[in-house]
Every structure is written in structure tokens, then in C-alpha cells.
């Protein structure tokens, strides 16, 4: 049972509790028997619907009973028995799923029932968005609620910019909300795919009528100026709590987006050189940021994330230098090795990963998804 404390063996029984749980069992088993036999008999009368609702209020995951309600109510919901009956049925179903989700906010079946109602086109999308916003304010990491929100936003054609602002509000309320950081990884590429590119390299490449480096149907990386803003946001979060992994996982994505701005090596010209220099500058700036963070945190055991990030930034920088024909800085290589060696000690659970990274057998940044 998720999160239910164990009762010690031999603990004195509370007669009241025992009685209550016996009553609960008796009621639930009778209710189950009654509802499932009515379902088998295809009884769709109001009394049967009331009983099935009672069962779902107690146990929202009984999918067969949700199926039963959909079978019974589909025609009414779609207005076959008049608009009043339809309105009343919609109201009842929405209320029932609300009660069910209060009982168990992770009940797949209850979420699906609500989605099904939306798909029938009988529910106000605006109202639903308000409800899910309230729910996420109370339960910020509920992935069912986030999925439902995305589903609604798509249906209601909510602009990606609006949802992006919402994710920003969530992050400002709590930097540890990875669900909101994740939302940005979906929304930002959408927003910037729709906008003209501001990368000098891309403009020049277009001038030379070279084919775009982005795969067809796939948006290119988000522009560098936007990445800069995101890196600033990450800095705020990581300086607030350097041990929370949410912003660091997001930071890795930003780096892979940054590296995706590199034009392939077959088109080495002025533009790609400038681009490479700009990227190198961003990497160096991020290294400095991590170093500042390290200086402000005397407890080395809390420094895993900035240390790992510096190692990766250095790796990326030497990759750039190598591409540009600059001689490999032995000092950087030594520092990278030192960092991974430190990490093996600081974070021994992931020793195997750091060892592979040290030996060049694990690469998680340079291959953008």
C-alpha cells in the first residue's frame, strides 16, 4: 500500500476501528455485488446509476463501473433525451469525477472518464482549465493533472506562450517543480519554431542558399538569446538550492540545445566560426557561474551538481576547440579527470557512471535528442 504505515503485530485492537472496518467491508462487498449484477443485466435506470456512483466514490479505480456509466449515459449526454437531461447528466458526471479524484488524485480511470466527457464536446474547456489550475496549485507534481492540462490546452488551442507563462509561474512559486521545467522543454521549441530565426549563422547560411540543418518536420534548436534567458533562470534556481536536481536536469537540455547551433563541419565558413565562438563564450560563462556557486558553498558534499556540470561544460568546450583546430588544453583535460574522480567519491552511488564518463564511454550532453 503506497504510503500507509504498517500496524505493529500484537498492537491492541481498537474495537471501534475493527467494527468500522467490518461495516465498511460489508457495505463495499454488498455494493460491488449489487452494481456488478445490475451491470451484467444492463440496467441503466437512475437507481442503478446512483449506486454505481456510490461505488466509484469509494473506489475510483473500478474501471468496469466507469464503462457501465458511459454505456448508460452516452445517449443522454449527447442530447438524445433533450438538452435538460444532457445538462444534468454532464453535471453529475463532472461532480462524480471530482469526488473520485479527491479520493484518489492518481486514479487513471477517473481521469479518463473526465477526458472522455471533454472528447464528447459537452464540457466547457475554459472551466476545465480553471479547475486543473486549482488542482495543480494544491498538487504541483501530479502528472495526470499535467497531462490533462496539456490535453485541454491543445483542444482549446491555447497559445504556447500562455502555457509557457503558466510554467514560469509554477517555477517561480517553487524551483523544485520539475513538472513545470519539463513543460518548458515542450513549449519553448514550439514557440521558437514558429518564429523567424535570429541566429546569424542561419541567416548567412540561408544567404548561401544552403539547406537548413534542421531535419524536416522537426524544429531546430531554440535561439541563443532565448537560451540565455533560460540559463539565467536556471542560475536563480541552482543558487537557491544547489542540491535540487530539477533545474540541473533542465540545464543539461539547454546545453544540448546550445550545441545544436553548431553547423555541420562541412560548411566551415565565417558564420560557423562566429557561431562557435559565441557558443564557446556561453560555455565559459556557465563555467564561471558554477565556480561562483562552488565558492559560496563550503560543504563539498553539497556540490555534486556544479562539479558535474563544470566537467560537462569543459568537455563541450574542448570539443569545440578540437573542431576549430585549436590545440587541446591539457589543463582542461586534467581538470575534467579530476572532477570525475572527485564525483566518484562525493556521489559513490553513481560511481559506475562517472567512471564510464571519465573513460569517455558515456556521453549525455553532446547528442541532442
Amino acid at each position: 500500500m503506497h504510503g500507509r504505515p504498517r500496524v505493529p503485530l500484537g498492537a491492541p485492537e481498537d474495537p471501534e476501528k475493527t467494527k468500522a472496518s467490518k461495516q465498511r467491508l460489508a457495505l463495499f462487498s454488498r455494493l460491488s455485488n449489487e452494481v456488478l449484477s445490475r451491470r451484467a443485466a444492463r440496467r441503466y435506470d437512475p437507481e442503478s446509476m446512483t449506486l454505481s456512483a456510490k461505488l466509484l466514490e469509494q473506489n475510483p479505480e473500478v474501471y468496469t463501473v466507469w464503462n457501465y456509466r458511459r454505456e448508460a449515459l452516452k445517449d443522454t449526454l449527447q442530447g438524445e433525451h433533450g438538452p435538460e437531461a444532457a445538462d444534468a447528466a454532464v453535471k453529475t458526471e463532472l461532480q462524480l469525477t471530482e469526488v473520485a479524484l479527491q479520493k484518489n488524485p492518481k486514479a487513471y480511470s477517473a481521469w479518463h472518464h473526465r477526458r472522455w466527457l471533454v472528447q464528447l464536446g459537452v464540457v466547457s474547456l475554459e472551466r476545465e482549465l480553471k479547475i486543473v489550475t486549482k488542482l495543480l496549485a494544491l498538487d504541483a507534481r501530479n502528472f495526470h493533472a499535467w497531462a490533462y492540462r496539456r490535453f485541454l490546452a491543445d483542444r482549446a488551442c491555447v497559445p504556447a506562450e500562455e502555457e509557457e507563462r503558466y510554467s514560469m509561474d509554477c517555477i517561480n512559486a517553487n524551483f523544485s517543480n520539475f513538472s513545470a521545467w519539463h513543460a518548458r522543454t515542450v513549449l519553448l521549441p514550439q514557440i521558437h519554431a514558429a518564429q523567424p530565426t535570429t541566429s546569424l549563422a542561419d541567416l548567412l547560411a540561408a544567404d548561401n542558399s544552403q539547406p537548413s540543418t534542421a531535419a524536416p518536420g522537426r524544429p531546430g534548436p531554440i535561439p541563443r538569446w532565448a537560451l540565455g534567458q533560460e540559463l539565467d533562470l536556471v542560475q536563480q534556481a541552482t543558487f537557491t538550492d544547489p542540491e535540487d536536481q530539477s533545474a540541473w536536469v533542465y540545464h543539461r537540455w539547454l546545453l544540448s540545445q546550445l550545441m545544436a547551433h553548431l553547423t555541420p563541419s562541412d560548411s566551415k565558413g565565417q558564420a560557423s566560426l562566429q557561431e562557435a565562438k559565441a557558443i564557446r563564450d556561453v560555455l565559459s560563462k556557465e563555467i564561471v557561474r558554477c565556480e561562483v556557486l562552488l565558492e559560496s558553498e563550503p560543504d563539498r558534499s553539497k556540490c555534486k551538481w556544479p562539479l558535474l556540470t563544470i566537467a560537462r561544460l569543459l568537455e563541450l568546450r574542448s570539443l569545440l576547440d578540437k573542431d576549430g583546430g585549436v590545440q587541446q588544453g591539457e589543463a582542461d583535460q586534467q581538470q575534467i579527470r579530476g572532477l570525475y574522480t572527485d564525483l566518484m567519491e562525493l556521489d559513490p552511488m553513481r560511481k559506475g557512471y562517472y567512471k564510464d564518463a571519465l573513460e569517455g564511454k558515456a556521453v549525455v550532453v553532446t547528442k541532442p535528442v
Partner: protein
Amino acid sequence: MAIQEKEGSGKVLLKDKHADYIASFEKNKESFEFYATEHFRMSGVYWGLTAMHLLGRLDVMDKDTILAWVLSCQREDGGFGGSERHDSHLLYTLSAVQILALYGALDRVNTDRILSYVSSLQQEDGSFAGDSWGEVDTRFSYCALSCCSLLGDLQAVNVPQAVSYIVSCHNIDGGFGCTAGNESHAGQVFCCVAALHIAGALDRLDRDLTCWWLCERQTKSGGLNGRPEKLQDVCYSWWCLTALSILDRLHWIDRDALSSFILQCQDEERGGISDRPDDMVDVFHTFFGIAGLSLLGLCDLEPIDPTYALPVDIVQTLVQKE
């Protein structure tokens, strides 16, 4: 090899107690849980039986009664319900196929009917609905591919399309969500990685990235969580572990710390394993805990296959290796 029962915490796997706990679960029809879990009993039985097999105690269970019960749960559409009184669903169809496979009894069902049920649930974009009511989720992609593969006919569904849908749910952190655009979750990562493995499409993954996200699930407790900054749990431990094993990166986590966490979740008095130490046990976590220890090669358990979550010898018999 020596029996490595004692791990970091000095605790041992209480095999007899867990076997007794599982065996008694089905008999206790007077509990609220017995009724509350009726709609997913097929999965409960699969978890219990597979755990018993791993413990080497499957013979304690009443095979004939169980098989007759499983067969009684097949619906007209070819799928299986969570129990006699429930509708067919992909989740329970897979559990039923797994139980039949475990007992070597797949010849007792009409395979074509099951395959046609599974393929009827594939959508245009390659995804799968869990049943005729249309809930789409990458969990169901796994159920569908696993079912077809165990029944020896993967081509009953459109595999390239199924793969393309799963890949569309791949996130920037290397994980997978329940549908495209949704946050990565360890349970979903298991489903998608295992499904891609069955489809022979692991090359569509960035292994290092996925496994780095997975190894970051291990918390100070030794257990693994399902998403960043969430609590560890024995079941998430299993899901991360299987994906790491399929992708050949088990050495990226601390195996001793994990086994010690699982052993600490045992109810040493009554048997069974819980999500976290000192919580109430259930068959679900008991299975995932034992399966995790088996995958780690500990406690002298029968080996389990990470992709199909069935004993290795059974999978070897049923699934043709390329």
C-alpha cells in the same frame, strides 16, 4: 557461487514468510482489500505467482483452480478482464497471458482471439488504447507488444508504427511519458524501453542519456524514485532496474544500497514487502522487491527476465531470439 543472502543492512530475504504471505493472500476473502482489488486481481495473481516461482515455491499454488479461473475471465472480444465480473482490458490480457506462460499453458487458449483483440486496440498513430473506451498510454504499447511476442506473433500488430509512437513520447531527459509531451516517469520508461527491446528498436534510444536519468533516480536511502525530487519506492526501483538492465548499465547504480533498501522494506513479522520501510505490505511490492533482488543476482532466486518480467527459462522457451 555462494548464496549472498546477507546484504549491506545485514538483513536476509525471509523467503518462507513471503511465500506464506502470498499463499495466504488469496484465501483471505474477509478483508476489505480482497474486494477493493477485485478489478485488478488478474495482475495480483500474476505478481503473486511469479514471485512464488522466483522463490521456488510455485508448486504450493493450486494450478488447476488458478488456470480455470484465468480462462473464465476471457471475454467475448478475446481480451481478459481483471476478474470474472470485469471488462476486458489490455493490462489484464497481458497478466493472463503471463500467468498462462508461467504455467506453460498457452495451448489452452485460442491465441488468434487474443491477438485480434490486441491488434484491434492499435490506433492510427501506432499507439494503443487500453480498451474500447480509448484511453491511450505507452503502458498499453508495452502490454500489446509483450502479449504478441509471448504468443509468438509480433506481426499481429503494426510494429514500425508502434515504435514510432513510443519514440514520439521520448523526452529531452531521456525518459518517456504516458503520451507525447508528458513528463518522464520510471514506470513509463520501463514500458517504453522494454517495448522497444521487444520490437528490436533499441537503436532509437540515446542509451547514455536514458540511463543517466535512471541512475539519478537512486536516492540516499538506496531505493529509487520514479521522477526527480520524489520519494523512493520498491516498485520504482524495479522499473528503473529493468530498464538499466536492458540497456546494459546496471553498474551505474549502487546495487548493494538498493538490495539493502528492498530488504529493509520487508515485514519481518508477517511477511511481504512494502513500498518503503515500515509501510503496509502488498503483493505488488512483494513481487517487485523479490524480482529486483533476482535481477541483481542476489538471494539465490530464480532469474527473471527484465523485458517480459517472467522467469528467464520461460522467456527462452517462448520468445525466439533473433
